[in-house]
């Protein structure tokens, strides 16, 4: 692997190793106390889930327009990342909600939209795995539809009251809380990049292997 990949992986592992200490040093939030500290993993996971979904949508659109399979491999890798980080978000969220709000789940706008988006990403993976030959283009169509659907899902689910904190909380965070948050965001971003690079490389090797296999077939 290239040098930058090796150093990036090392840095990512180091950041994750240090992160519990950075988080422990952050001050307690006034109402929720210790439980609030899940936020430092929950929010970066959610952001990475959204980023991966957007990357999948854009790569799928480019694949449908150009037909270049590099975009298809990027889209597939991004969908896997979306399912992974989405799962992290959907597990840490209820764990936090149980202590903070007294309930495991609540059907508010953002949570439900995230669940639906996560299921679309999962459906993408199911289609790639079990759809048989030709499922690259079908999956790209699905990803495109899923991406276009985001505002509709959000607006329709938003009919009910939302008890999620407003998005304007982040800029107003004091430095003592802002620093651990951005530290964790950087760690998670690095993790996303490293995993994507690894996954895309696996897909490239697979494509190269298939091409060699098929070319030998034709000669015989």
């Amino acid at each position: 692997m290239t040098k930058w990949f090796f150093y990036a992986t090392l840095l990512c592992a180091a950041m994750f190793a240090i992160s519990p200490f950075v988080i422990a040093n952050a001050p307690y939030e006034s109402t929720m106390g210790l439980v609030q500290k899940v936020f430092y993993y929950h929010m970066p996971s959610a952001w990475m889930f959204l980023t991966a979904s957007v990357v999948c949508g854009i790569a799928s659109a480019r694949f449908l327009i150009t037909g270049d399979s590099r975009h298809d491999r990027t889209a597939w890798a991004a969908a896997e990342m979306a399912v992974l980080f989405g799962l992290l978000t959907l597990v840490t969220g209820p764990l936090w909600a149980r202590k903070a709000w007294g309930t495991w789940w609540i059907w508010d706008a953002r949570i439900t939209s995230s669940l639906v988006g996560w299921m679309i990403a999962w459906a993408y993976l199911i289609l790639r795995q079990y759809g048989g030959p030709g499922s690259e283009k079908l999956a790209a169509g699905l990803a495109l539809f899923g991406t276009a659907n985001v505002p509709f899902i959000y607006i329709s689910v938003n009919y009910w009251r939302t008890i999620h904190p407003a998005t304007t909380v982040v800029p107003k965070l004091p430095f003592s809380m802002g620093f651990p948050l951005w530290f964790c965001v950087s760690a998670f971003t690095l993790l996303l990049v490293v995993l994507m690079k690894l996954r895309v490389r696996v897909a490239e090797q697979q494509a190269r292997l298939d091409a060699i296999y098929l070319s030998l077939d034709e000669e015989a």
Partner: protein
Amino acid sequence: MMLRAIWLIVRKDLTVEVRSRELAYTTLFFALSCVLVFAFSLVQEGRAADGVGPGVLWMAIMFAGNLALGRTFERERQAETLRALMLVPAPREAVYLGKLTGIVLLLALTEAVLVPIVAFLFQAEMLAHPFWLISVVATGTIGFAAVGTLFAAMLVRARSRDVLLPVLLYPITVPVIIAGVRGTVAIAQPEFDAEVVRFWLTLLVAFDVVFVTLALWTFEPVMTD
């Protein structure tokens, strides 16, 4: 040229359907069976829980619609007429719109029977405002069918196509389900509020416009290699 192609495709489907009536009868019967299953699940001590009528209606439409979509394209696949459709000397969008029109007509026929029966069985006052009800049900059906026709056409050549259609279709049509049910609930309210119904109707119309356009754009790339 395009309108003529769409009409010919719709006429073909209608002709086949009128002769056998297979899809119409089986879709309708399946929708009614769904309603029956929901009735047994939700009725306690002889009375349905309050306000479940709209939910039952849309669940029946979703399940019956899924079946109708799968079987419409299965018919094309078995008769190998899909290849003929792709070779038609008309824009590909005409094929999509023709199939979409056929499916919407089939579902409209099913809903014409289903809506009064659900209103009757679950004591939901949905029929008090027929214009609003027809608008909500029609736009919801068009939205569902628009996405469903594209996915069903895409999946015709795929493996596991029967189970993949609902796996792909239901998460994408979540806004239709939500807007359809909430719109129908708002229509069935004793104190009728037109503003609420108009909001959900606007959302459904926007969904229809965006997704029919998107489907028209992606039909050609996904159906051809």
